[in-house]
């Protein structure tokens, strides 16, 4: 079977993990925000900013890791803007989030044009190259696919492990989860709800920017407007898909990317000639929604998600 054979090739899974990497980073960012009770719809714009800033850092000679760091910092600043309005002022998280997305996207364009007033073609950088981590190749099934990735993919996977560890194995993680469930009790413990939430949004936004930076520093070597192309919105859905749990959201990102890698290959197979290409492009989204329906039925939504906290108010 031609179609089933697609799943058995290592290159297919290599592609799936490559496609998933920016989603994993940004999904972890969104997950941290939401576990603390803040929906961050600024994600799409923050990814655009991260994609530009990361690339720009490398372009002006800060090096690839300098670009990564710069993207993280700019993401955190945009997160601070988001948090100052949604957490400190308790404004609508929907309106602020979309506002941040619009602002970040437009600011990025402005910065791009100010920095590069007259270029005749989109400038390129020397992007991250895949490194061979031979030892990973011994892991069954996914091993060969994991062994040929760029450093940022390994960073993305490390982020999942760290997020999971911090959320479930540290006092900070306990406080973060509690602040998304019952902020009053956290406040009664003498902890700062404001501080925890602002911190979560700031760090989460930094990770979103890294997701964007992956596109320009790893997946490609130049910055284009519109290249984030809705990936941020996919991450919002992946958080729900993963029932607000890092490992499940990670699997969701891999699954979505695998569907995408699959449709790309299917489009070129013999059946691709008979089916409109739009059906293929729709596949990852459609299958993800179907999986979402199944997976999220027993999901425990953070009880205080989108509920602003005012100290002393009952």
């Amino acid at each position, binding site marked *: 079977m031609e179609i089933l054979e697609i799943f058995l*090739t290592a*290159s297919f899974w290599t*592609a799936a993990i*490559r*496609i998933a990497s920016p989603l994993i980073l940004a999904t972890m960012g969104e997950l941290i925000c939401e576990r603390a009770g803040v929906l961050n719809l600024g994600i799409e714009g923050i990814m655009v900013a991260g994609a530009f800033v990361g690339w720009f850092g490398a372009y002006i000679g800060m090096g690839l890791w300098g670009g990564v760091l710069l993207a993280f910092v700019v993401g955190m600043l945009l997160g601070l803007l988001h948090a100052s309005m949604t957490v400190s002022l308790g404004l609508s998280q929907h309106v602020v989030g979309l506002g941040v997305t619009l602002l970040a996207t437009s600011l990025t*364009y402005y910065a*791009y*044009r100010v920095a590069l007033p007259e*270029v*005749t*073609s*989109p400038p*390129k950088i020397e992007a991250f190259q895949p490194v061979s981590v031979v030892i990973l190749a011994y892991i069954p099934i996914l091993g060969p696919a994991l062994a040929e990735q760029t450093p940022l993919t390994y960073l993305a996977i490390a982020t999942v492990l760290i997020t999971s560890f911090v959320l479930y194995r540290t006092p900070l993680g306990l406080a973060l989860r509690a602040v998304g469930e019952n902020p009053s009790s956290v406040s009664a413990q003498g902890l700062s709800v404001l501080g925890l939430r602002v911190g979560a949004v700031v760090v989460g936004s930094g990770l979103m920017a890294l997701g964007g930076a992956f*596109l320009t520093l790893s*997946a*490609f*070597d*130049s910055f*284009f*407007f*519109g*290249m984030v*192309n809705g990936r941020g919105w996919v991450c919002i859905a992946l958080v729900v898909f993963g029932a607000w749990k890092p490992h499940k959201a990670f699997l969701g990102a891999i699954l979505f990317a695998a569907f*995408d*890698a699959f449709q*790309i*290959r299917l*489009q*070129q*197979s*013999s059946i*691709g*000639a008979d089916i409109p*290409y*739009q059906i293929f*492009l729709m596949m990852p989204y459609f299958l993800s929604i179907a999986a979402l329906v199944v997976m999220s039925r027993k999901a425990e939504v953070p009880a205080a998600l989108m509920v602003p906290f005012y100290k002393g108010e009952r």
Partner: protein
Amino acid sequence: MSSHQSLKISRRTLIKGTASALVLAPSLGILPLASAKDPIKTAGIYTVPVEQQWVSRIHKAALAAQSRGDIAYTFTENTANTDYPRVMREYAEQGNTLIIGEIFGAEAEAREVVAEYPDVAFLMGSSFKEDPSLPNLAVFDNYIQDASYLSGIIAGAMTKSGNIGMVGGFPIPEVNRLMHAFMAGAREMNPNIRFQVSFIGSWFDPPKAKETAFAMIEGGADLLYAERFGVSDAAKERGILAIGNVIDTQDQYPSTVVASAIWHFEPTMDAAVAAVQAGNFKAADYGIYSFMKHGGCTLAPYGTFAGKIPQKAVDMVAKRTAEIKNGSYTVTINDDEPKSS
């Protein structure tokens, strides 16, 4: 301004014209009349930054026309399609007589604006044809199938596996036409070539175009038709060949881009400027000015691949170029969505 246009003057332009006449009349003692030698006030409205491939060709031609003194050029880039009609209005209100741009994503609304400003000539990239009821809208697109066909001849001679991958954005007429012409050219050299065709549903998602190209290489392609950014990068990374489209990208990929079909917007621009100057700008399809016989497209110089392309293909390209120019050969126009074979 021709007389039939001034008869259709709108209330808005009448008020504006009267106001400016009132301001200028005392100081100059005459009413302002545009002379044919004045540069035409021209505005460009683009949905992406001007360095991106398709728009860069228009921008370049407009700058050339400006440096010749034919037009006075101003432009706005990265305009969202939802904002497009508003920007059109603003430029029309500012007294521009020629507005160029692209209305692929705002076809219906843009046409409403065109109807509101009958005195302004609009030259717009569009997937649709001209409309006789909108005499001030002419359409164009990069119909460079002649050059695409020639680049296909080279591709057909250079592929060893007989398997060519093609990644497109959306299957709109211009994209389809060029792909079909390219395929026809390749089949001239090898009638049994297999084509893998994919559309990524986006114009600017290079990572996705690159992933699609990787999948095609895994599927056996040893030459890629790079309709989108990202495809040439995949070819370079895997060390296979690529054919460029619209712009010459060989300087960026000297060892992998064999040939490029280049679009020249200058004939389209010059035809519009001449029509506006002569006062006979009308609804027309300026797409023909992208044809090779009008100088609208060429095959890029072989550059780094000079001497590496089979002589048979080079001869065929030379023969067909001459035939296309003298009209004895016409590249078949097919705007249907191409499919994998």
